[in-house]
């Protein structure tokens, strides 16, 4: 278990609050802005940061994150650059966990052993590889564990109980429930469905359960936070930065986080009463 991630969930649990986890693509809108954006997210109330590693063929992502990936790639951002951004971020923030999210090929191309070593050295805390299901990443999981990193997995509405148990056995950090059948940024969130599935997941998974895909604002975040330990927001944040002028991105990121953090904490406080 990674120390920083475990500490965040422990603290939040003691306070009766849920983790707010934003996703941004490393290098988008500009590689030079990524570290400032990460600090902005933390200033706005983010607990854990998911940093996307750009990939040319992001098959599980929707158009918004795919375009963010394309913009980052057009500026030449590779996995070594992403690790560099995490190193820079760590200079001013030793507390907030950073989870890298991406696809298998850039990691395999970098070399899984080198990646586990360099990611840990850079200050990465967890890794989520979208196209590494448990059965294809046994060696990778062992390498990450040895390096003190959590391997984070997705669960989906189509995941069977047996599947939840498989993921539960090797999941580190938290699991991430994909709240709808579809790609990132798509469709309509069915909070009743989420409320039905999360208790089933908890029977098989010991780590905290986060919910993502389809969360766009305070209302949807508050709705899923009632049943989960964390909410993940990606596409909406990227869209807001897309529309904002250069130089304001970190502020936009901070303000958007704050607009969700407030209602999230208010709802948690109300539930505790």
């Amino acid at each position: 278990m990674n120390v920083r991630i475990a500490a965040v969930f422990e603290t939040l649990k003691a306070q009766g609050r849920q983790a707010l986890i934003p996703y941004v693509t490393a290098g988008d809108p500009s590689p030079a802005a990524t570290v400032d954006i990460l600090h902005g997210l933390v200033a706005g109330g983010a607990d854990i940061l998911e940093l996307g590693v750009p990939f040319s063929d992001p098959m599980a992502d929707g158009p918004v994150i795919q375009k963010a990936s394309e913009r980052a790639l057009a500026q030449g951002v590779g996995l070594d650059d992403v690790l560099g951004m995490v190193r820079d971020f760590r200079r001013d923030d030793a507390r907030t966990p950073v989870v890298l999210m991406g696809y298998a090929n850039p990691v395999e191309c970098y070399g899984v052993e080198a990646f586990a070593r360099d990611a840990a050295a850079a200050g990465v805390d967890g890794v989520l590889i979208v196209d590494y299901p448990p059965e294809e990443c046994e060696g990778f999981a062992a390498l990450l564990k040895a390096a003190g990193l959590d391997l984070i997995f997705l669960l989906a509405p189509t995941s069977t109980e047996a599947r939840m148990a498989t993921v539960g056995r090797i999941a580190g950090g938290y699991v991430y429930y994909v709240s709808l059948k579809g790609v990132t940024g798509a469709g309509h969130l069915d909070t009743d469905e989420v409320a039905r599935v999360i208790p089933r997941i908890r029977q098989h998974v010991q780590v905290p359960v986060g919910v993502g895909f389809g969360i766009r604002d305070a209302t949807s975040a508050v709705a899923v936070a009632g049943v989960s330990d964390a909410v993940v927001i990606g596409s909406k944040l990227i869209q807001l930065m897309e529309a904002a002028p250069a130089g304001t991105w970190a502020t936009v990121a901070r303000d958007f986080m704050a607009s969700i953090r407030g209602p999230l904490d208010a709802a948690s406080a109300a539930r505790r009463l």
Partner: protein
Amino acid sequence: MLDYQQPDARGHFGPVNGSYFGGTFVAETLIHALDELKATYARYQHDAEFQREFRHELAHFVGRPSPVYHAARLSRELGGAQIHLKREDLNHTGAHKVNNTIGQALLAKRMGKPRIIAETGAGQHGVATATICARYGLECVVYMGSEDIKRQSPNVYRMKLLGATVVPVDSGSKTLKDALNEALRDWVTNVENTYYIIGTVAGPAPYPAMVRDFQSVIGEECLTQMPTQIGRQPDAVLACVGGGSNAMGIFYPYIPHEGTRLIGVEAAGEGLDSGKHSASLTRGTPGVLHGNRTYLLQDRNGQITETHSISAGLDYPGVGPEHAYLKDIGRAEYVGITDTEALEAFHRLCRTEGIIPALESSHAVAHAMKMAPTMRPDQHLLVNLSGRGDKDIGTVADLSNADFYCRPSCRGQSVKGGVSVVEMKS
């Protein structure tokens, strides 16, 4: 005879060099659908009634067995080995693609999935899928790169005539790999009522082995046809390789027959060292794309690079994982043929044998034309003529600077790699 049992229960081809190819590298959302498909295929793979229906369709709807044809005039002109063509171009819909499509559509029917999606490059798989969906009354959506839509407009129109919806894909290189990404996205979203018919021996398990099994009817027929024709098995079997389904189909039954060389012909485009080609096996490195580990064309950061081929059907940066395995164990050889060489073979076969081959297949013909003169007249090359070239005449006309377009819808169109068509004067 080589003892060959691949892949294993997890869809892994190998181990070889400490690793394996194939596998199931997909997002969690698709795991359930793939497990369901694995179970369904395992159930029907050896089911007598399923096999009977599949064989019946191949005989009566597709027109199998396809003949093996001795290209005597071409062989005589080249002055060496005898070239034989396995005539998959004579199949209904004009290519080998229909074999696999029927097999998978029969599975979709048994799984009760009313909606079929597919991806297509040259459009042959799209046409085959649209055809079978029309025949079985299934909804059909085909994803196709917008670049390929331009190159292969006759096939796009055929799909529409057959009742399919063709969705243009504008992301990335606007070709086959992007169509595959988009089809996978659709599947993630509509997994409950949708069956995804992958058109080649790539993608996550069980597709590579399943598509190979459906296509291996090609090689099985050859195993009995060649002894009748020449008294023995050929010295070499040649087939073009993009994703690699026609090649796996003809190679697979020959794998234990070690006296027969297996030669896959990739698209060398403007040259293997030009950076503009689609030769994943001869110029790529192992990696993970579209649900499996295989040879890929990628840059130093593991990003998939843009590919080029005169032939839309070969314009793909990956290749089926079983080809990667056959290459690494040395059972099959892989070579490259350039756009120019393929085009020359295309014209040569038209003129000497009265057969217009697909540009994909022309790559295999071109390599046979290179090999034959170095061999004796009592030696035999079997080339899989995977498809007919009607769909490619626009591309060939553009490259030859011939302007046969006379329809308003074609004005000003050009093809990738070709010169643009001169605007029709009004």
